[in-house]
């Protein structure tokens, strides 16, 4: 047995301790393969086991998504990229079909997932993973659980009046199954285009930007039952590579850019228009990277002071400034400050009551969370940490500070979608949504 992709024997997303779905394609693995895998996963130190494990001649490859292990096992020396990518795709399809990805939705829709697995893979060979083809074969309907949420109520305007808020897509709108024939949401013809960027930044102790990378993608989530051509216009001054410059103002530049194979690029070079016939479900149209150069200042600057107080107290004074334009706001900002291993307790002074800070003894770090942080604002916090046996060397243990946050309606590269057209114009109501968000992949500030 040599090559080929064989998601052989068994293919099973398992939740720790319990397996939800198990499909044996080749009749070669024992039924206890799952328990072998589970034993191996739990025996590993740390909560993040390596991706490939082997037991006798059986190789297990797994990915973790939505709190579940998605495991494939094979007896051949297959391509790791293929198997990992396939498992990711399987998880994405499950999410498309079931609406969301969690243990509960997998449990409720197991018949649907078995049906998917049956059509996607035969005898251990991948047949197709395209939603367009699969939707012809999948007959089971997804069961969704809709928890009662206050957010839905907030969308209803006062006395039924149209409010500003109803023009904003609810965040749960994109987490529903793509194929709902009879459910009440079924009539909605919606298409979401998301520009998602992940930023990773290292700022040195002197405030100098040492590393700044942006990885971005344009994602389309389509609920339109029939396909029609969609045209997405990007900023005209969008340029790729270092040499190419377009337009006069601030260029929107990326280093490298790659497209989904279905994207037609004949108008891209001149007009920066992507043409695509989106298939149902979620797909990534374009991926791009920018390294070492940000068109704007990094979103956060930190001015720390670390001092040894009399006795065994460590004083950490943090001043955090948000350099976003005043209109944007950062959400769910959390700042992690490592403290000496022997730290015992923390007292803090924060500038507003909605912020919280606590000392996590397990990670030996202070976690300062700020739910909303408007652009241009500056927040400060004073932490007093009780450290028995504090020495000047202990100060070295403070830092580097890491942050995580979410910047809605903001892209670091400046990439914008000028227009989104469906042609020919789709009959009936079709709603188009464009959303921007920047996540922090890793944001580190050295002290």
């Amino acid at each position, binding site marked *: 047995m040599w090559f080929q992709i064989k998601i052989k024997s068994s293919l099973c997303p398992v939740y720790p301790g319990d397996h939800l779905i198990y499909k044996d394609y080749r009749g070669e693995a024992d039924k206890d393969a799952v328990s072998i895998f589970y034993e191996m996963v739990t025996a590993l130190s740390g909560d993040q086991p390596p991706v490939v494990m082997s037991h006798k001649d059986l190789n297990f490859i797994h990915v973790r998504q939505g709190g579940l292990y998605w495991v494939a096992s094979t007896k051949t020396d297959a391509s790791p*990229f293929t198997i990992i*990518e396939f498992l990711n795709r399987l998880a994405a399809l499950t999410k498309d079909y079931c609406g969301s990805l969690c243990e509960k939705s997998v449990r409720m829709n197991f018949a649907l997932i*078995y049906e998917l697995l049956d059509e996607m893979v035969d005898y251990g060979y991948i047949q197709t993973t395209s939603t367009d083809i699969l939707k012809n074969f999948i007959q089971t309907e997804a069961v969704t659980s809709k928890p009662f949420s206050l957010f839905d109520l907030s969308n209803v305007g006062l006395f039924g009046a149209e409010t500003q808020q109803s023009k904003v897509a609810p965040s749960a709108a994109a987490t529903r199954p793509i194929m709902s024939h009879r459910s009440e949401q079924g009539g909605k013809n919606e298409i979401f285009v998301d520009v998602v960027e992940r930023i990773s930044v290292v700022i040195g102790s002197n405030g100098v930007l040492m590393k700044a990378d942006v990885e971005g993608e344009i994602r389309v989530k389509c609920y339109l039952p029939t396909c029609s051509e969609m045209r997405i216009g990007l900023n005209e001054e969008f340029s790729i590579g270092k040499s190419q410059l377009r337009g006069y103002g601030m260029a929107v530049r990326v280093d490298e850019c790659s497209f989904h194979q279905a994207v037609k690029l004949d108008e891209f070079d001149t007009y920066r228009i992507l043409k695509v016939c989106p298939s149902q479900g979620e797909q990534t149209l374009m991926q791009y990277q920018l390294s070492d150069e940000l068109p704007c200042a990094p979103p956060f600057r930190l001015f720390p002071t670390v001092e040894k107080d009399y006795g065994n107290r460590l004083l950490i004074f943090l001043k955090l400034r948000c350099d976003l334009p005043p209109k944007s706001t950062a959400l769910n900002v959390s700042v992690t400050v490592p403290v000496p291993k022997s730290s015992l307790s923390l007292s803090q002074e924060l500038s507003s009551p909605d912020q919280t800070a606590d000392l996590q003894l397990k990670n030996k770090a202070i976690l300062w969370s700020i739910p909303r942080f408007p652009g241009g604002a500056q927040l400060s916090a004073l932490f007093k940490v009780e450290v028995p046996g504090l020495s000047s060397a202990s100060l070295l243990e403070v830092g580097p500070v890491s942050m995580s946050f979410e910047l809605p309606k903001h892209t670091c590269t400046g990439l914008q979608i000028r227009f989104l057209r469906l042609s020919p114009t789709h009959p009936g109501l079709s709603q188009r949504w464009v959303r921007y968000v920047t996540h922090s992949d890793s944001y580190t500030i050295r002290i």
Partner: protein
Amino acid sequence: MPYFGSEETVKDLKRALSNPNVQADRLRYRNYITRVIRSMTQGLDVSSLFMEMVKASATVDIVQKKLVYLYMVTYAGHKPDLALLAINTLRKDCADPNPMVRGLALRNMCNLRMPGITEYIQQPILSGLRDKASYVRRVAVLGCAKMHSLQPNTEIDPSVVNELYALLRDPDPVVMVNCLRALEEILRDEGGVVINKPIAHHLLNRLKDLDSWAQSEVLRLLLRYCPRSDDELFDILSLLDGFLSSAHAPVMAATLRLFLHLAAAHPAVQADALSRARGPLLAVCGSASRELRFAGLSHVQQVLRSQPAQYCSHYKRFFCSYSEPGYIRLRKMEILVELVNDENVVLILEELKSYCTDVSTDLAQAAIAAIGRIGRTYTEKCLDILTGLLALKQEHITSAVVQTFRDLVWFCPQSTGPVCKAVEGCDETPQDDEGKQALLWLLGAHGELISSAPYLLEGFIDGLKVEISSAVKMELLTSTLKLFLSRPAETQDMLGRLLHYCIEDEADMNVRDRAGLYYRLLQSGPDRTRQILLGPNSDPSMTVLTGRPEEPVSVWASSFNTLGSLCGTGAGPENLPAEDSAHQVHAAEEAELGFGPAEQNLNTEPEEPLSDAAAAELDLTAGPPISHEAFERLWLDLQVVHQQVLEVRRPPEPPETLQAAFLLVKIQTLAFSRADAALWKAYVYSRAGGTLLLAELLQGAPEEPESEGMLLVSIKQQPENQSAVRNFISVLKRVLQTLSSNTS
């Protein structure tokens, strides 16, 4: 996980399924069947419901059909007699006007793994191969493979094989790829599907129509094809060129592997392909999926084995993110060490330094070890950082730093002074075995430079009774004896106590034997002891160059894009530096003492490429690096076969440049003396036509005053081959002349 009261559940289900009222209500019926499947997945034995489920399969509801088939496939092996009852329904479905029903029935019929099924499935498969719906053909093609696996020892039916080969021209791409897969399985004993020129070209031309999964699979099969001529080769490569920068990682990796394989004879093409795939590979390393990131990093590591320079400027991509799991961060650190050069060393060290205080002990220790590895080239900067870390007074950090110190001292003797000072200033002793051994080794080997050494050792000897590890005890014995040789007055008393304890009270036989040996050794007099015990702690006259030579691409290309590369078996030579040097230290010591078998090091000796000798190519070739011990032994064993004065002076370049220049012509470097040494020496080696050539370059030899600064070369060889020697000398001379003329 059987449920409590599982028998009750099965009985309930059985009753419900045979209830005519339930059977009449489609939704209720389906609901009960769903419950059966759910119980089955949870591990409950529901095989007793087989009869009821067979009945349920005769329905028009496709969802219900699918569920029942899933059940049947699982339990057919347990109830072959009952499963035969289902065959009729299945065969009827195979003739259904709806292609989806036909395909479904055929697929599940082939999946019933039970004896005797083949006679029933053969006919439907054969008609399925000629079905007008591609969906059914796809199923039928793989059905052939399934049928073959059910009766593995029967003869292969040539008509089926021919039909499958013919179906390679099928308009549906999935049918085509399935044919390849089926043929591969059926013809496994004959070496798989034949990829001849027409098939290879057909596949290459169809490549664009396939989806990415099929593409990467076909690219993998194409590895088997050898183009006849260079023209054909380059035609193929230019056809594949676009796939190299595919956004789809599996396709990119498969294409790159095929490139490396096909262009094995054209290193320039290989290098070009690697540099073109760099962008996509870096993108994979930053992918949102952690698992994909890990796979990308492992493959970057492979590429680095041949082309370390390619990624140097992208080092920032390999900085760790705090949210990443440990296994990714460890890989990234390993890569960062490889990427260090003069420009980025400061930034990389600063980054690594910030990992040293990580919450995870493993990560912190790995970061310290990484700094130590960089320290072999950039000693001073790293020593500063490591010494600073000692001030943290954290057990695991101190232990890792001391281990790193030990390795540094071994590889870079010039670091001995600062290291000893740092060890002296450190008042925290490591508590784990590895750390203790490292500290003891340092105290024994360089005790004369550490004024507090006897007190530290005394502390260990006092705690001997509670010490568990015998390895630590052995190390303690050796270092106390070594320290006794350099500082007898302070150590004599404690050595006596230690030997007494180890010989009289120690339970571990190894420790006792070692103590006895040392005791007898001391009886033969201090000079004799010194002569035997004090081996080289590192060769002080040599500056060892530890930069790993670049390996040819072919070494790792075969494991590229396979699971092996992720398990770490593919990236073999990167064993942990600590183990490596500990082994060397130990081996050297054993050999000195005379009871370690000298052959122990033979495994590091290169295997002579005898098969290549037939080619009688006398061109120099690079091979696996030779360890210092192996080289030394060979040098001492062999006679000088050739000695001559080269008419060139020593080039004034720094050793790194010399080494790089030699490497270009496949001469590997073992060691150089310092540039300012009066007696300058260099040891190099190379291979040619199956022989191994060792050479010493010497300048300013006292016994050759007439050479006047010219280089004297002495060559030793195994086995002898005069023409190789002549070739070697001419190459050597050419390089040295070029270097000298460049600078003058």
